[in-house]
């Protein structure tokens, strides 16, 4: 084989369940789940920052648990339910409590980190519907934001929990 000859890489069929919809794609086994979501399925809400698990921008829910999409392979995610930021919106298209809270409290500036915060907090207030400030800080400690200084994100967590409680009461 000469250098100029293209090397063919093995690809595998992969079936992903994302936000309640099934997607069939064909990708090399090394395709990161974050890239499969963005490039193969076209759900570009999941952002990619560091690609080694540190920044949290790619955080999605795997069977409901916040997980780094950049630390999973698409081929390994076939038997689980994936929820991306696109899947957080209510069925009628209205904003979910976390999304509304970020809007109310100015929880974002450039918005790059926001999808990862939204998924993380959505699971956070599901598991702890009445967080205090300390819980809120703890909830978001694994996600990095370069713009906000975090104060408004902490406020957004508390507000999101409040909206969620109101929604549940009504």
């Amino acid at each position, binding site marked *: 084989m000469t250098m100029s000859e293209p090397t063919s*890489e*093995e690809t*595998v069929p992969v079936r992903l369940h994302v936000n309640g919809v099934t997607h069939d794609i064909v990708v*090399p*086994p*090394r395709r*990161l789940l974050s*890239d499969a979501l963005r490039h193969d399925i076209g759900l570009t809400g999941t952002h990619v920052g560091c*690609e*080694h*698990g540190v920044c*949290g921008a790619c*955080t999605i829910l*795997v069977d409901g*648990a*916040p*997980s*780094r999409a*950049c*630390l*999973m*392979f698409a*081929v*390994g995610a076939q038997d689980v339910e994936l929820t991306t930021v696109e899947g957080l919106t209510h069925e009628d298209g209205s904003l979910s409590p976390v999304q509304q809270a970020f809007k109310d409290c100015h929880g974002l500036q450039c918005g790059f980190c926001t999808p990862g915060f939204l998924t*993380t907090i959505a699971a956070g207030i599901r598991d702890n519907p009445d967080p205090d400030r300390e819980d809120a800080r*703890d*909830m978001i*400690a*694994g996600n990095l934001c370069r713009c906000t200084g975090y104060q408004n994100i902490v406020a957004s967590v508390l507000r999101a929990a409040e909206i969620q409680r109101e929604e549940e009461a009504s």
Partner: protein
Amino acid sequence: MKPAPFTYRRPTSLTEALDLLAQEPEAKVLAGGQSLVPLLSMRLSSVPVLIDINGLPDLARVTVDDSGVRFGALVRHSDLLAHEGAAAAQPLLAAALRHVAHPTIRNRGTTVGSIVHADASGEMPMILRLADGTLTVASSRGRREIAARDLFVGPLETSLAADEIAVEAFVPALPAGSGVAFDEVARRHGDYALCGVGAVVALDGAGSVEHVRAGYVSVSETPAVVDLTECFPDGEMTARTLAAAGEMAVGQLDPESDIHGTADYRAQLARALTARVLKAAQDDARARAAQKVSS
């Protein structure tokens, strides 16, 4: 960056996984992926074949009895941390797991994977050493148990053979009369520790210190455990004996400088944390003894 190409296999039985590994000794096991995938993405490592063990639900079990806690290779940090029986039998587990990364990482990372990864900056390899645990490994040649003291042979290096898969770890229950504590200093909660210390302190019937062991994170090449009993000849923890214990421990450690802290600073953290954690472990032992008497 992206990982280099590899072939992916997802066995549905342990036998199948072991056969695959026997045929391809260069293959690597994928558990939680929270250490392996970054290494592959940064191309610090590459593999011809990845054997994903996430299709082996038998490895996701935690069992607790009087002798201790047994957890399989697919038990996530978050599951072990939430396991009340495990925390009651060996409180060191939960005390240290709280400091392993952030909840999102703990949701996928496995405790056995962390032990096999053998990072001396990881909390759980040290805890296995400190609690005198064992790792059960399997290959197509059979099974064997490796004592923690024989497991960690170098930086990120264990005594597992290339064709062996770790199936479960065992951590003995806390003996009666003992107490534990763990604390660490990190730049941010959930980050790798600049220095972390765990301790087991045993008291005799009269409440006097009988036996003291401490384990250290991020200040040595392999997970370090030091017997500090001799620093407490008359069984009392005083400012003086605790300082002596810190000094003795630091003498056996070998902290390194990096961008986050100098070797001297890490040594100073080890001294300060030793005193704090040993005292807390003694308090814990006393509280447990009091609880036992009252119940």
